[in-house]
C-alpha cells in the first residue's frame, strides 16, 4: 500500500459512505471531513517534489498493462480537484442541502455524484499508461454526466448534450489510441514516448485530430464548446461550482499529457499546416485564442448569471492552453497557474451566484438588482471573483494572465496578444454586467426582505475569496508548485519570487503592486473622507430622473441588452455558426436514421435479399 493507494481508497470510501449515509443530515459534514482527509493524504504523497508515487495496483487486460502513478502534474491537478471538492461539499453541507431536499431532490444523489467525480478524477490523474488514461477519462465523463443530470429537467437535456459530445470525443480518443497501438504495439507511456518520434507527420496530425479533439471536447475548445455552458449552468449549485472549477480542466490535463509530455512543443512547432505558414503549435494556439474570444463574447449576451459564468469558463480554458502553447517558462507557468487561479475564482463566483439564487430564486440578470444592500458579503465574494476573472490587480487571476501576456510579448506574438486582450476586455464587460445587474442598481420590491446568504454557504465563499486575494498578493508559494510541475514536464521552470516573477526584462512583484494600490486607496480614502463633508445615504428612489417622481413599482434599472451600442455593431457578427454546424450534424444523423428506418420499413425485403445474394455471388466470382 503506497500513499497513493491510501488516497484513492479514502476517496472510494467517501463515495461508499455517501452512498450509505447520503440521506442523513450529517452526510454533508462527513463529506467535508473526508475531503479534508484526502487533501492531507495528497499532501503526504510528496509527488510534487519527489519521485512519482506509484500505486500498488496494476492490471493487465489483453496483454495491455495498466498502472497508476502520481507525478507533479497529477499532484497539482489533484490538489485543485480535492480542494474544489472540499469547498463545494462545505457549501452544500448545511442549509443548501436542506433546501435541496425540500425541493424534492435527493441530497444523497448529489453527494454521491460529487464524490464519484472526485474519485474518478483522482483515478484519471493517476493514469500511468494510455489505456488507464482512457478508462479514467470515460469514468470522469460519466461521473460528470451524473452530476449534471441530477438536477433533472433542463439539466437533463444539457447533460444529454454533454454526453453525446463527450462520448463522441471518447470514441475519437479510442480510435487515436488504436492508431498509437498499431504503430507502437503498446499503450505504455514510456514505450509510446520512445516510438512516437518515428510517426510520420500525417500520423501525428491524425493523432492530434483524434485524441486532441477528444480531449478538447471536455475542455470545451472551440468547435466543441456548445455543450458546456448549459451543462455546467444547470447543475445544482455546488456541483456547478465544482464542475466549473476543475471538471473541464481534466481535458487540459489530458491535452498536456498529449501535447507537452508526449509529443512535445518542439514537435508541434516543427509540423507545418499544409498550404499555410502556420505550424501545428500556432494552430492550437489560435484555436485557444478563438476559444478565449468567442465564448467570452457569447457570455456577454447571456442574461442568466449561471450561463454567463459558464460561458466564461470555456473562454478561460483558452488562456490556459494559450499559455502552454507559448511554451516558454513564463507562458507555460501562466497557463498552469491559471488552472489554479481560475479554479478558485470560478468556484467562488458560482457559489456567490447560487447563493443569490438560493435567496431570491432566480439567476435572471433582468430580474435582480440592488442586492448589495441585502447580501453585502456575497457581493464582496463576487467582487473579488470578478476582479480575478477579469484579470485585474490585485487578485489571483491577474498574476496568471499577466504571465500569459508577458510570454506573448516576449515571444513576439502580436496577434495572439491582441486576441488575448480582446478576450480580457470582453470579460471585463460581461463581469461588470454580472455584478451590476445582480448587486448594484435598484433593489426590487420583491427582494426587500432578502437576507444574507446562510453562514454555511458564506464561509466557503469567504474562504475562497480570501484565497483569491492571498494568492494574488503572494503568488510565490503557488508558483513553486507550478515550477515543480514544469520541471516534471521537462519545461523550463519559471523564476518565481514570493511576490511574483523575476525577470530582468520586466518582472512582476505583486507585493509592491498591491502595496502601492492599497496605499493609493488609502490616499483616495483620505481625500474622499477626510476632505469632503459628511454625506448622507438616501433612499434609492431619491434619484435623478429628469424631474420624474420614481415609485417602487416601476423599475429604474438598466439591465436588458446592457451593451446595446456594442451589440449594434457586433450583434450581426453572432452568426451561430457552431450552433448551425451542430444542427447540421444532428440533421445528418436524423436523415441517416430516417433512411435506415426506411430500409427496415421497406415493403419488399426479398428484393434486398436477392440483391445481396447477387452482389455477393458477383463478388466471389469476380
Amino acid at each position: 500500500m503506497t500513499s497513493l493507494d491510501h488516497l484513492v481508497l479514502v476517496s472510494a470510501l467517501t463515495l461508499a459512505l455517501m452512498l450509505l449515509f447520503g440521506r442523513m443530515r450529517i452526510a454533508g459534514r462527513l463529506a467535508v471531513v473526508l475531503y479534508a482527509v484526502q487533501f492531507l493524504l495528497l499532501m503526504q504523497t510528496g509527488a510534487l517534489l519527489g519521485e512519482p508515487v506509484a500505486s500498488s495496483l496494476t492490471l493487465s487486460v489483453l496483454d495491455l498493462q495498466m498502472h497508476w502513478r502520481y507525478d507533479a502534474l497529477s499532484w497539482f491537478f489533484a490538489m485543485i480537484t480535492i480542494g474544489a471538492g472540499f469547498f463545494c461539499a462545505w457549501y452544500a453541507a448545511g442549509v443548501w442541502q436542506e433546501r435541496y431536499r425540500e425541493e424534492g431532490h435527493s441530497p444523497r444523489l448529489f453527494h454521491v455524484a460529487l464524490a464519484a467525480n472526485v474519485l474518478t478524477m483522482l483515478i484519471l490523474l493517476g493514469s500511468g499508461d494510455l489505456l488507464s488514461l482512457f478508462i479514467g477519462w470515460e469514468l470522469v465523463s460519466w461521473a460528470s454526466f451524473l452530476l449534471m443530470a441530477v438536477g433533472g429537467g433542463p439539466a437533463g437535456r444539457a447533460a444529454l448534450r454533454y454526453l453525446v459530445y463527450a462520448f463522441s470525443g471518447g470514441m475519437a480518443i479510442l480510435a487515436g489510441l488504436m492508431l498509437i497501438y498499431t504503430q507502437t504495439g503498446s499503450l505504455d507511456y514510456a514505450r509510446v514516448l520512445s516510438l512516437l518520434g518515428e510517426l510520420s507527420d500525417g500520423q501525428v496530425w491524425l493523432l492530434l485530430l483524434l485524441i486532441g479533439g477528444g480531449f478538447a471536447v471536455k475542455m470545451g475548445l472551440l468547435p466543441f464548446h456548445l455543450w458546456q455552458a448549459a451543462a455546467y449552468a444547470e447543475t445544482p449549485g455546488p456541483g456547478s461550482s465544482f464542475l466549473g472549477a476543475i471538471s473541464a480542466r481534466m481535458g487540459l490535463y489530458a491535452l498536456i499529457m498529449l501535447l507537452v509530455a508526449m509529443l512535445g512543443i518542439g514537435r508541434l512547432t516543427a509540423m507545418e499546416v499544409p498550404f499555410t505558414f502556420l505550424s501545428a503549435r500556432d494552430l492550437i494556439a489560435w484555436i485557444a485564442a478563438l476559444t478565449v474570444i468567442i465564448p467570452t463574447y457569447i457570455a456577454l449576451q447571456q442574461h442568466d448569471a449561471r450561463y454567463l459564468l459558464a460561458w466564461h469558463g470555456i473562454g478561460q480554458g483558452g488562456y490556459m492552453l494559450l499559455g502552454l502553447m507559448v511554451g516558454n517558462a513564463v507562458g507555460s507557468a501562466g497557463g498552469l497557474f491559471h488552472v489554479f487561479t481560475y479554479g478558485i475564482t470560478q468556484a467562488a463566483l458560482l457559489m456567490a451566484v447560487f447563493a443569490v439564487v438560493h435567496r431570491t430564486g432566480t439567476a435572471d440578470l433582468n430580474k435582480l438588482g440592488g442586492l448589495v444592500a441585502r447580501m453585502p458579503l456575497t457581493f464582496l465574494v463576487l467582487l473579488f471573483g470578478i476582479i480575478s476573472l477579469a484579470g485585474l490587480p490585485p487578485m489571483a487571476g491577474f498574476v496568471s494572465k499577466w504571465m500569459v501576456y508577458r510570454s506573448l510579448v516576449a515571444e513576439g506574438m502580436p496577434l495572439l496578444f491582441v486576441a488575448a486582450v480582446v478576450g480580457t476586455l470582453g470579460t471585463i464587460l460581461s463581469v461588470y454586467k454580472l455584478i451590476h445587474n445582480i448587486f448594484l442598481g435598484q433593489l426590487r420590491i420583491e427582494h426587500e426582505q432578502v437576507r444574507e446568504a446562510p453562514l454555511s454557504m458564506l464561509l466557503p465563499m469567504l474562504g475562497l475569496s480570501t484565497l483569491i486575494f492571498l494568492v494574488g498578493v503572494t503568488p510565490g508559494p503557488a508558483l513553486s508548485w507550478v515550477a515543480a510541475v514544469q520541471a516534471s514536464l521537462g519545461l523550463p521552470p519559471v523564476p518565481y519570487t514570493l511576490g511574483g516573477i523575476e525577470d530582468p526584462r520586466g518582472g512582476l512583484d505583486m507585493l509592491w503592486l498591491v502595496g502601492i494600490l492599497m496605499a493609493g486607496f488609502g490616499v483616495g480614502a483620505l481625500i474622499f473622507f477626510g476632505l469632503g463633508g459628511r454625506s448622507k445615504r438616501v433612499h434609492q428612489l431619491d434619484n435623478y430622473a429628469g424631474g420624474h417622481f420614481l415609485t417602487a413599482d416601476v423599475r429604474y434599472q438598466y439591465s436588458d441588452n446592457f451593451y446595446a451600442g456594442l451589440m449594434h455593431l457586433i450583434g450581426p457578427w453572432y452568426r451561430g455558426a457552431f450552433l448551425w454546424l451542430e444542427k447540421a450534424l444532428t440533421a445528418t444523423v436524423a436523415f441517416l436514421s430516417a433512411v435506415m428506418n426506411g430500409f427496415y420499413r421497406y415493403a419488399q425485403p426479398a428484393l434486398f435479399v436477392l440483391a445481396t445474394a447477387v452482389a455477393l455471388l458477383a463478388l466471389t466470382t469476380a
Partner: protein
Amino acid sequence: MMSLTLEGVVLIGALGLIVIGALGMAISNHLFRMLLALVLAESGANLLIVLSGYRVGASAPILGFGDPTAPMVDPVPQVLVLTAIVIGVGVQALAVALLLKVYRVYGTLNVRELRDRMDADVATAAGVEADASQDAPAGERPLPPVPAHASVGSGGFGRRGPVPFPPQSDERRP
C-alpha cells in the same frame, strides 16, 4: 460453346427456378403470389439438391431394384430432399394459415397497404405517432407548434409574464 448435357440442363433449370422464384418474391405485390413464388424457389433448391447426388446413367439406390453392382445414384441427397420438402410444405402451410388470418384482420393482402396498416397498428399499440407512409400525400402538414419561450417575456422593462424558473436557456445565437 460447351455442349449441354442433361445434367447441365437440369442444373440451369434448378437455378432458373430459384431465380424466378426470387424475382417473383421480390416484385410481386400480393402476399399470396409471393408465397407461390417461394414455392417455386423451394422446388428449385430441392432440384439442386437432388442434382447434387445424381450420376449419369446410374440406377436408383433402391435395394432389390435394378443391378446392385451397377453405379447407383448417391442416395443421401434424395433422403435430404425428402426432409427439405417436408419442411417446405410445413412452412408453406403455416404461411397460408397466417395469410388467412391476416386477411381476416386487415382485409387486404396487398403488400404496401398491409405495411401501412400494420405500421399504424403497431404505432397505435405502442402509443406513438406513426411515421408518414411513403405513399402518403405530402400536403396537409400541421403547422409547427408555437415555441414555448415565445410567449414568455424575456425580462426587461415593463414585460411581466409568467416567470419560468430555472429560466430558459438563453443562448441566443452563440
